[in-house]
């Protein structure tokens, strides 16, 4: 079965979204994963968008998390405070985030590269809703390519909290207890977080990927699960639905 990295990551991510749960997604790969999950595994998965869309029957990939597709034939066209407050009340199970840098505790930088906040080398958009979702949803997932530049020991700016500095740090900072990073799905492996240390721990490696390759592409020391398994590659029906129904114009999977 032939597939690219993006298809692989989307298929793997889709399997984590349980039926009868709520996920807030952005555009791109996370939206594709949620749509795929809905079509194959979790038909009652509730998809929300931070600008206010609740439970749309997505006719196609939205371009913006606030465009009219995000509430096409939806259950409700609400508001940003409505979605964010639903997260804050503890009703949202999953969210997906991305970023320019991520550290071993799952802290994410989407604000800037450089040493001086007032004079950034590179300025990115900033948090948007990322910090809110990463603070307030129960389980935060990432779909991201893995390399040394992105997976780095020290990120330049903590935009969105992962486990911050380790066990207990989120709670100490005042973030809702029991929330935090859950899985990081990369082009090389699936990474979870160790219960004790709250550090990234490799759970499974994709077909053809070696430990060396994963280590080479990570700027910090990874933990390894006792039994690192082989990731179950995309199945024919997953690819079929992804290519023909979820993203027929290859907006997202074309990037893989």
């Amino acid at each position, binding site marked *: 079965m032939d597939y690219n990295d993006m298809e692989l990551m989307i298929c793997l991510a889709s399997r984590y979204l349980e039926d009868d749960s709520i996920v807030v997604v952005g*555009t791109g790969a996370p939206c594709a994963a949620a749509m795929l999950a809905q079509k194959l595994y979790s038909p009652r998965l509730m998809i929300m968008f931070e*600008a206010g869309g609740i439970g749309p029957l997505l*006719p196609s990939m939205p371009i913006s998390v606030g465009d009219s597709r995000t509430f096409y034939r939806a259950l409700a*066209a609400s508001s940003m*405070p409505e979605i964010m407050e639903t997260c804050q009340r503890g009703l949202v199970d999953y969210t997906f985030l991305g970023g320019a840098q991520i550290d071993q505790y799952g802290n994410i930088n989407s604000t800037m590269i450089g040493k001086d906040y007032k004079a950034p080398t590179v300025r990115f958009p900033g948090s948007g*809703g990322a910090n809110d979702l990463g603070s307030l949803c129960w389980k935060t997932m990432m779909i991201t390519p893995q390399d040394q530049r992105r997976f780095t020991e020290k990120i330049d700016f903590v935009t*969105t909290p992962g486990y911050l500095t380790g066990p207990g740090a989120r709670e100490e900072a*005042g973030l809702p207890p029991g929330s935090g990073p859950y899985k990081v799905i990369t082009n090389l492996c699936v990474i979870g977080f160790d219960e004790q240390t709250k550090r990234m721990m490799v759970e499974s490696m994709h077909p053809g990927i070696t430990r060396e390759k994963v280590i080479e592409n990570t700027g910090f020391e990874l933990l390894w699960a006792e039994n690192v398994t082989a990731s179950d590659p995309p199945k024919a029906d997953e690819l079929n639905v992804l290519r023909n129904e979820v993203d027929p114009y290859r907006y997202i999977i074309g990037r893989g």
Partner: protein
Amino acid sequence: MADFTELLQEKKVTYKPGGCGKIYTDPDADRARLYFRDQKPRKMVEKTTTVGEAVKNLINNGDYIGVGGFGANRIPTAVLHEMVRQGKKNIGLAGHTATHDFQILVAGNCIDRCDIAYVVGLEARGLSKIARTAIESGAIDTTEWTNAALTWRYKAAAMGLSFLPVRCMLGTDTQKYSAAMEMECPFTGIKYLAVPALYPDVGIIHVHRADVYGNCQIDGIMVADSDLARAAKRLIITTERLVPNLVIRREPTKTVIPYYLVDAVIEVPFGSYPGNMAYEYFSDEDHLREWLKAENDPEDLAAFLKRYIYGVKDFNGYLDQIGGMTRLQELRYQENMVEK
């Protein structure tokens, strides 16, 4: 540049800045009440005007503005273009997913300070080079927030308060470079972040329909506009259609902005273009791409801005430049998924 952190310290309240960012607008609820008592007309009178007059009379250099919609969805493009044409300067902006709106105001060198939740990017479309440069060079002073934080800052103001406790931003650099402050719940001891109320000098919102008094209805998602309309000291409404008051009264459940919040109403058909307007027209992705591409070269950008903003009289002139009704109709088919 106004920094109300100092003003607050003068009042000898217990305020000690948590983050190191600035507060660009006065969060004081008592002063806001006096403003609303003395400056907001209660009279239900006709408020229709032109975009040119509204921008001239209601937006001053140095004002802080909040823009409705969501980046390139239901944005008041005509007012933003007019601000550029009139050369408005030293404007402060609530960067609450400000994408194409931010891009327009940066192109006109209008902004000198920004509460950032999301700027510079146009979501999946890519990054605006001029917006990025404006921040990297320090030309725009910034304080960090998040979309929820800015939403709740509007909400605090809409509630007539001076702050709200929230549970985001805690423990991060986003908090450090904000102007929020940690606090403890007096009932439960839960740690919160207090975010100051945001009362913009001017709110600018594009709606689906309004009557001449300013009673407004919006179809589809509200984003943060219900609170923005209430938080703003002055409010400019552009509307796809001006409708008789009876149309509003026929479906009062749809009215989200009552007339007493509104200072000016202007009918601007296709007023969110090149942004998306739910149930009316989709975003013009070709034109947004053209914008981003023009930014790569200063001469291209100057020619682009001359063609679409400086060289046209008003928003209808802009719509003529982008292909007029032929193009707009295509976008309407796209929005309504009409197969042509």
